[in-house]
Structure formats: C-alpha cells, structure tokens
C-alpha cells in the first residue's frame, strides 16, 4: 500500500511566509520605530512566550498552574546572581539560568504531580511563594527591597546605550521565536502525539503504551526551563529586580492566563492573538487605572462564557482554518 503523510497545508505555507516577513520587520524595528515602542515590543515578546508556555501546560497537558511566576522570578534572580557573583555575560547567563530552572523543575514537578486538579494549582502557587520568601532572605541580592544590575555588568553587554537596547531587544525576539518554534515542534512530534492522546483520554493512552507521567514531566520540565529563560530576559530588560516584582502572580500568571483564555486555550495561534489584544487594551486603557483591570476581568468572563475556545477558537470554527497545523494527513497514491 503506497501512501504519503502530509504535514503542511497551503494555509500553513502562506502563514510561514507572512511570519518570515513579519520577522524581518521585527528584526529591523530598532531602525523603524522609537525607543518606547522597542521596549513595548520586548514586553510583548515576553508575554507571548509566557502565554504560549502556560498554554502548553494547561491547554495540552491539563496542568493548570498558577505558579509559573516561580520560574519567571527564579530566572530573574539567576540572571542577577550569575552576572554579579560569577561574572557571567548577561546574555550567556540566560541559557544557563534556563538549565538551572529545568533542573529545579524535576523535584518540584515530582512533588506537584502527586496533586490533582485544583490541588496542583494551589501547590504550584505555594511553591512560587516559598521561592519569593526565600529570595527575600538573600541579602547579597538586596533582600526584600531588591537590587539593580551593577553598571559594570550593564555596560558589559555593549558600551553605548543604543546598542545595548538593540541587543536586549533582539534577545527577546530570538527567545520568543525560539519558544514558538519549540512549542510547534513539540506538538508536531511524537511527544505531541502522546500529549494530545493523554488530553483526550488518559485511560486509552495508557493502555496503548503511553507513559503519562513521563510525557507530562518532560513537558513540565521543558516549559519550566524556557519560562526561566524568559524570566531572565524580563529582568535583563528591567535592569532591576525585587522579590515582589519577580514572583508577581498578577504579572506573570494572571495576565498570562488572560492572554491564553482570550486568544484560545489549546491552540498555537491563541496566545499570539491574545497577546495582541492584551497589549491593545493595555495601551489604550492603562490611563483609566482600576477601570482597566475591571475591563480585563469582564472581558475574560465574557469570553469564557460566550467563546470558551477564545477568539482564535471562534475564527477557526467559522473558517475551519489552521495556520499552524500539527495534524498528519494520509494521502493514498
């Protein structure tokens, strides 16, 4: 029997081309737009990456974490520690921090995986709080009030401010692109097949030979490592860290969940759309103060009730389109 497996569609090829063009513009952005926009884009990259990673855990593994700020904060602090104490180049410290975050995730995941559903969520939050309180005790990193990245470290990235900001911006872009590509590659791989199986029926997957624990652990550890790297990047961009900012459940989990929910949980496209919506809202409504938070909350509830699969869910249901297909199509010749 002769057959082929197709993994691309015309829509996905077009998407790849559009994405490449967008990427070219983003690479050139420092010469196309001002400093404020570059900073904003850097922030968008962080949130896009965090939301894609959270979505991988919650939307594909059913692991609803409200404690991903643990790894964001850990990443920030590792960046500072590696640069200040060990003299690491900050850009090099990012992957090293990521590795440490992944290693940390192994015992943490082993413990948390004993908890089911809501208990897993609470456990993940408790772990983040433990880290926040622990780092507040480290007086050489400023204790509870925090620390700034020393000037010598900062000027080590690049001597003039303009180039430094461009390099940091490119780092953020590279990280966000890498995270998206890794998420896509993972979902298209054998691991993604196991993951989708587990999401749809754990009992059937196990009796077809899938190792549920190991599959989820692999994803949890990968997500933790990448989230840590994003955390390092966030605080490299801020140049300042404190326990409350580093382990903020509001910034690194609530907003991230908002993005994933609005965009569409369990889809690759969702977090991208969610990030754009979130930043549009923030940039237009941020002056309103508390009203802004109320609008976010109301919108999230509305979407959850009216379109549980998010904005992308609505679009893809109507148009039956998938820009980043992870499916396999059999073609009999």
């Amino acid at each position, binding site marked *: *029997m002769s057959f082929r497996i197709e993994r691309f569609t015309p829509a996905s090829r077009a998407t790849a081309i559009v994405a490449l063009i967008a990427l070219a513009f983003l690479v050139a952005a420092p010469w196309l737009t001002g400093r404020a926009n570059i900073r904003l884009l850097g922030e968008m990259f962080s949130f896009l990456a965090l939301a894609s990673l959270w979505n991988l855990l919650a939307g594909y593994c059913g692991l609803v974490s409200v404690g991903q700020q643990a790894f964001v904060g850990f990443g920030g602090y590792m960046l500072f520690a590696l640069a200040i104490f060990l003299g690491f180049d900050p850009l090099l410290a990012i992957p090293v921090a990521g590795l440490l975050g992944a290693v940390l995730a192994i015992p943490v995941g082993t413990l948390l995986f004993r908890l089911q559903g809501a208990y897993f969520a609470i456990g993940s939050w408790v772990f983040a709080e433990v880290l926040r309180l622990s780092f507040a005790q480290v007086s050489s990193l400023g204790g509870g009030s925090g620390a700034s990245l020393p000037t010598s470290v900062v000027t080590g990235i690049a001597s003039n401010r303009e180039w430094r900001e461009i390099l940091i911006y490119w780092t953020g872009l590279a990280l966000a692109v890498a995270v998206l590509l890794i998420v896509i590659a993972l979902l298209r791989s054998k691991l993604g097949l*196991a993951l989708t199986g587990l999401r*749809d029926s754990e*009992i*059937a997957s196990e009796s077809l*030979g899938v190792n549920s624990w190991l599959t989820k652990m692999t994803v949890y550890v990968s997500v933790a490592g990448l989230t840590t790297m994003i955390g390092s990047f966030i605080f490299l961009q801020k140049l300042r860290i404190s326990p409350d900012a580093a382990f903020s459940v509001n910034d690194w989990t609530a907003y991230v969940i908002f993005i994933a929910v609005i965009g569409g949980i369990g889809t690759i496209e969702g977090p991208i759309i969610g990030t754009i919506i979130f930043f549009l809202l923030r940039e237009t409504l941020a002056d309103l103060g508390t009203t802004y938070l109320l609008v976010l909350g109301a919108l999230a509830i509305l979407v959850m009730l009216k379109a549980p699969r998010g904005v992308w869910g609505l679009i893809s249901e109507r148009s039956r389109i998938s820009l980043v297909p992870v*499916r*396999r*199509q059999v073609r009999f010749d």
Partner: protein
Amino acid sequence: MTIITLDRVSKRYGALQVTDAVSLALERGSALGIIGPNGAGKTTLFNLIAGTTLADSGTIRFDGEDVTRMPARRRCHRGIGRSFQIPHPFVGMTTYENVLVGATFGGRLSERDAAAKAVDVLELTGLARKANVLAGQLTLLERKRLEMARALASSPRLLLLDEIAGGLTEPECAELVDAIRNVRAQGVSIIWIEHVVHALLAVVDRIAVIDFGRKIAEGEPAATMASPEVAAIYMGMESEAAHG
C-alpha cells in the same frame, strides 16, 4: 503453552464482588469467547487483564511473567492489546493519528514503521476512507472499529475485544468476523466478549460464561451454549425482558 493464565483473580467495588476468584488459561494462538449477562463483570475482567484496574487478589501471568501489578502501558508493551466497550477515541486527532498512537507507543515502532503499520491496520479494519477525519466525528460503529484498530496497531500477542459486533448489519458482521479471523491467522491469541453469539461462534474455539463475577462454565462452544448454566442465564434474561 499458555499465553495468559488467571489464578483465582478477585476484585470488589465497595460491597460488590465484581470478579470472584476467576481462573482462566488460554493456549497461545487460540480464541476464547466470553458471554454473560450485563453487569456480570466481563469488562472488569478485561480491565484486570489489561491493567486498567488492579486485582485485589489472585495472580495474572502473561507469557510466563507475573503481570498482576504491572501498569497498563507496560502490559501493552508486553503484548496485551484491548478495545474498550465504551469507545475512548482521541477526539482531537484524526483516525489515522489515533491508530498511530498505538503503533508508536504500544508497538514502539520508528516513525516510518509506525506510519506503515497504522495504514495497514486502517485497511484491515476498513477505516482507510476515514483516515483524515477527526475521530470526534466518527459514528459509534466507526468508533468501535477504531478501538480494535488502535489495539491492533500496538502489535498485540493477546487481543481483548469487548462487544464490538453489536449494531452491525449482517454483511458488516461477516466482514468483522473475517477481519478477526485474519488477525488470528497471524498467530494473535484472542479473548472476545460478545453478545452477538453467532459471530462469536464463527471465531472462537472455547467459550467461558461469567455470571455475578464467577466463571460458571467453560468449554467447547456448542456444548457450553447447550449447557444448563447457560440455559438458566438466558432464560433469566428472557423473563427479565418479558417483565421489562
């Protein structure tokens, strides 16, 4: 040489003794039919053999190895494949991908070999036309066929089939019987729980009867079907039906 042996296997759910000291032995390459009224504990027996639930007592040996406490995925790797009476399709995947899960993780094949195996199985089970359809969109009958296809893709040496012939038309049923015979001809041992007795009789060499968690009869099909135990059960079922 037996492929699977159950020795006084028991299981209870709360006060209900669902499996009551069941002993069974199946010769390699042979096919056993299991019949019995609804709620008798037939599916539970499969859950115990496949590792979906663990036995309270007794031992289960597969190919000489004690698998009583082994997790389901490892029993699948050893060569036990099962279909679920109530289908558990992976609704977010295509039919082909559903089968691919079995070939990849159960059969532990390389990407290339798993794809070839999956396509083979789709052909054998008549699901090739539905290869690219999301499993969530399959009809109940197709879902049942998918259950068998996924199990087959894991290259089992023992195949457990749980009520897959119900609701089929005569020609469909004949096709199914052919497919199962085909599998058996490749040396796969089979245990088949089925209410459609004539389909069962076309395949199996022996029949076991389960009632209230106990094995009340076992033997050559014609003799077992004619036994007083089976007659009593079916009479009971008929009078139940008359009352209902």
